[in-house]
């Protein structure tokens, strides 16, 4: 009986899976068009899976091995089952390999089951709770049914006496297993992640993210420009169907592991954002329905089941109650911790900014201070609404060389909007003293500089970003310089990764941009700086998101601190897992309330290291962390630490000049009573 039933079961499950696949593909194709190399992408899947995706999964060794055993075992077992049982190839060798594959899968599913008893909060429950059992059903069923073929049980075992009963039970188990593994894969079961995930890797929106054999850095973090020329086109994403189809495919690949949730600073602060839920909401919107079936952690403070959407219905309603509330989207600090952590390489930040673009550019609904900041950027080219001609007032005594006078310099020092902030002016002064001590030929743009456009872009105002960027590019094109150096990682990121797309043939915008920590490190390596011994207490270092995760610079700041003689007491979350200070993505401007503040949590991380001082490299981080109430560690920019430790060998003539002049007779003296 089984000999005839098994092929029928197998092929009908495959046929149903194929129908489901077509339906699923049609769901994705509701999205906007996006051209991808289909064949090339599909060819890349094994490498992208085995190298790039596995690189992320491997951060959790146990689960990585479990997944290799389970998924590897499944793929092999499924292929062999089709050959051995589907086509009835009677090969003892293949049967033994099939036995080995199902054993591996079974062992893997045991670990999966153990991990879920009880499941950590970041994992989704619901259908995901039955997955380990389904894996066991498939592997056990396939194992037992293969025993006769392998010659362990006599041929025809399942046709005799008690065998009939066993066969009946076995059929049930196999139907369950096939139902979950083949049918469920394309009809929205937990195994959907394998089907959608593989295609997501093939047609990823940022193919640059994946490595190739030549090695090198593979990072793609700059936001993609939104075309503004078309007068009729809707700007940004209003409905799920406004995403490109491969973005929708990416959302569908989510395996609900909740690593993003565990890393999200807004979620930890109790703001109404959970990256996992957001991606699941997009899937709900794509397929139509409510979020009532979602079985993971909700957005903090927002019960599950109150939101619903459809592919052509709005994602955000002004009055709320659509698929997602606006404050969910505005809670994001764009720190990219979720993207960094996602084993499926889903692009959460891109999606959030796409939806923000619609809210700002079409609805005109940027919350809290958002509208004011954008108006200021439009009218005064800086977010604070300060007089653009007062950009250099803070440096009146520094006699900074201006590009307008010099026309060319080795280094163009990009000052950023920190020029209007008294705290950041100290950092800039420190860095300028470092540059002077190293004898660097530099110049600044002065009043010609504008905001880089970072905050406008993250707030969704692509129009203002592009206007600022184009004018900055035009200004920069007038001067000759080898590189741009800046103390602001946000300007650094935008100049380095986001201006290029807006350049033209006459005014290319591909600059060599350095963060000041990288540049100082270069100066140290070149032996241009000499330091006193470090006398302070213990120090920890906070990685700015836009320097670390966005641009991969984790080493240079640490190398500079080491050169100063400082041994960094690393925080539990540092490097690529650094926790955001809460200052990115316009989050301090939109200021969505939560249960606690993100910088408070970060300073708690600092306190755990016992450090007296936290070194930073970003004006936003400085402002956010210094806003935490005392007692807390001191906050100093790397430039300040370097400037404090500088040993400046003054030239001989200058040294004589600076001696106190002989007391001249005073013409006016204060009369003391």
């Amino acid at each position: 009986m089984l000999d005839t039933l098994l092929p029928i079961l197998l092929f009908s499950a495959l046929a149903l899976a194929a129908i489901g696949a077509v339906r699923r593909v049609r769901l994705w194709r509701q999205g906007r068009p996006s051209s991808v190399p289909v064949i090339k992408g599909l060819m890349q899947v094994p490498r992208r899976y085995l190298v790039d995706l596995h690189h992320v999964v491997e951060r959790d060794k146990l689960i990585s091995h479990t997944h290799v055993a389970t998924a590897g075992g499944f793929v092999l077992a499924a292929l062999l089952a089709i050959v051995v049982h589907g086509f009835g190839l009677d090969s003892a060798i293949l049967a033994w390999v099939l036995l080995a594959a199902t054993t591996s899968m079974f062992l893997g599913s045991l670990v999966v089951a153990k991990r879920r008893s009880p499941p950590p909060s970041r994992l989704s429950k619901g259908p995901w709770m039955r997955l380990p059992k389904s894996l066991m059903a498939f592997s056990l069923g396939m194992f037992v049914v293969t025993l006769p073929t392998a010659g362990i049980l006599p041929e025809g075992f399942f046709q005799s006496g008690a065998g009939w009963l066993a066969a009946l039970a076995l059929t049930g188990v196999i139907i369950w297993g096939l139902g979950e593994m083949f049918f469920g894969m394309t009809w929205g079961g937990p195994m959907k992640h394998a089907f959608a995930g593989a295609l997501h890797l093939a047609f990823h929106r940022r193919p640059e993210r994946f490595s190739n054999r030549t090695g090198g850095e593979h990072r793609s973090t700059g936001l993609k420009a939104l075309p503004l020329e078309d007068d009729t086109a809707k700007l940004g994403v209003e409905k799920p169907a406004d995403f490109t189809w491969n973005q929708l495919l990416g959302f569908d690949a989510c395996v609900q592991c909740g690593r993003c949730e565990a890393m999200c600073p807004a979620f930890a602060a109790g703001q109404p954002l959970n990256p996992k839920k957001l991606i699941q909401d997009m899937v709900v919107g794509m397929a139509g329905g409510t979020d009532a079936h979602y079985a993971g952690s909700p957005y903090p403070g927002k019960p599950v089941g109150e939101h619903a959407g459809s592919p052509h219905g709005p994602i955000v309603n002004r009055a709320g109650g659509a698929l997602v509330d606006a404050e969910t989207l505005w809670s994001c600090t764009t720190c990219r911790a979720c993207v960094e952590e996602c084993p499926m390489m889903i692009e959460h930040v891109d999606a959030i900014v796409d939806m923000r673009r619609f809210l700002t550019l079409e609805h005109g609904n940027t919350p809290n201070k958002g509208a004011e900041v954008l108006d200021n950027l439009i009218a005064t080219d800086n977010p604070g609404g300060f007089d653009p001609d007062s950009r250099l007032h803070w440096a009146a005594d520094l006699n900074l060389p201006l590009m307008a006078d010099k026309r060319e310099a080795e280094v163009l020092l990009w000052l950023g909007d920190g020029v209007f902030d008294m705290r950041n002016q100290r950092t800039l002064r420190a860095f300028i003293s470092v540059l002077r001590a190293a004898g660097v030929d530099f110049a600044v743009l002065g009043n010609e500089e504008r905001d880089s456009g970072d905050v406008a872009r993250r707030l969704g105002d692509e129009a203002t970003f592009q206007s600022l960027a184009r004018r900055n590019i035009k200004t920069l094109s007038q001067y000759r310089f080898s590189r741009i150096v800046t103390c602001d990682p946000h300007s650094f990121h935008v100049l380095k990764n986001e201006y290029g797309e807006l350049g033209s043939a006459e005014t290319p915008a591909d600059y060599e941009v350095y963060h000041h920590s990288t540049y100082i490190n270069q100066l140290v390596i070149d032996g241009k700086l000499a330091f006193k011994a470090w006398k302070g207490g213990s120090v920890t270092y906070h990685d700015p998101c836009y320097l670390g995760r966005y641009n991969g610079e984790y080493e240079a700041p640490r190398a500079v601190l080491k050169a100063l003689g400082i041994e960094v007491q690393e925080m539990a979350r540092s490097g690529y897992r650094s926790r955001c200070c809460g200052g990115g993505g316009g989050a301090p401007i939109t200021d969505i309330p939560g249960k606690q503040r993100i910088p408070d949590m970060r300073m708690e991380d600092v306190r755990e290291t016992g450090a007296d001082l936290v070194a930073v490299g970003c004006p936003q981080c400085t402002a956010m962390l210094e806003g935490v109430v005392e007692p807390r560690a001191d906050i100093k920019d790397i430039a300040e630490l370097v400037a404090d430790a500088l040993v400046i060998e003054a030239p001989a003539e200058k040294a004589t000049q600076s001696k106190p002049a002989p007391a001249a007779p005073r013409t006016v003296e204060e009369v003391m009573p």
Partner: protein
Amino acid sequence: MPHDVSNTSASHSNASGLNVTVLVSVGRHPLTARARRADQDARAVEMALTLESTSVNLLHAGQQDSDHEAAIRGYLGMGIDSVGLIEQKPQADVVPALAKALRASASQLVLTGTRAETGEASGVMPYLLAEALGWPIITGLAAVEKIEQGTAVVLQALPRGKRRRLRIRLPAIATVDSSAPPARQSAFGPAKRGVLNLHQEPSEIDEALSSWHIQPARKRPKRLKIVKSSSARDRFKAAAAKADGGGGQTLSDVTPEQGAEAIFKLLKEEGVLR
């Protein structure tokens, strides 16, 4: 060419109920002098948009160039489909053109800012317009509470947060100053897509204005306020003290003749009338 503003200016919402026209001008940022939507005019648009079952028409009389267009589009970005644009020469007096357009329209309420940010910015335009149309004018509108049977119940803003409830007969002109609720954000998409309904109108050159010599105002030193005080309480009182208008009297329950008499007397005393 006849001009029918109510035809050319598309309406904001359902056309039933009240017809409100907002006169908008080109603003100027105080620091950078860049053209923008004028703050008070934008507040007037905001107030019109928050009125229920009203159709909102925007009207602008002035030159037409790219800078001005960007500023006028700032109003469209508040969620309005089109703006009527009466093209006038730079030196023109826009009151006759506006009066003609408003007379031809079915507007019952005209809202505008108290004072423009560019040009003469004398704040007299609403008065001249009210005079030309023979409509009542109310200044410092803070809120429109109710509109029924040809009258409106409104709140007028008085100094130091005081409010006065007034009933006015429509049609009327009302000016809005910064005590009105702030304007909503102007969104790029609707601003770009909005329609400018341009129509020509002969410009009446303002002879007086063309003979004037206009130059940027000189910055004058501010007189320092010296607070002679010994205690924190005194300093606080000095800082929080209300500016004394001095003099003045409140008349109530008087006949119009007595009221007019009092005003006439005051104007003579102040030297406004001789």
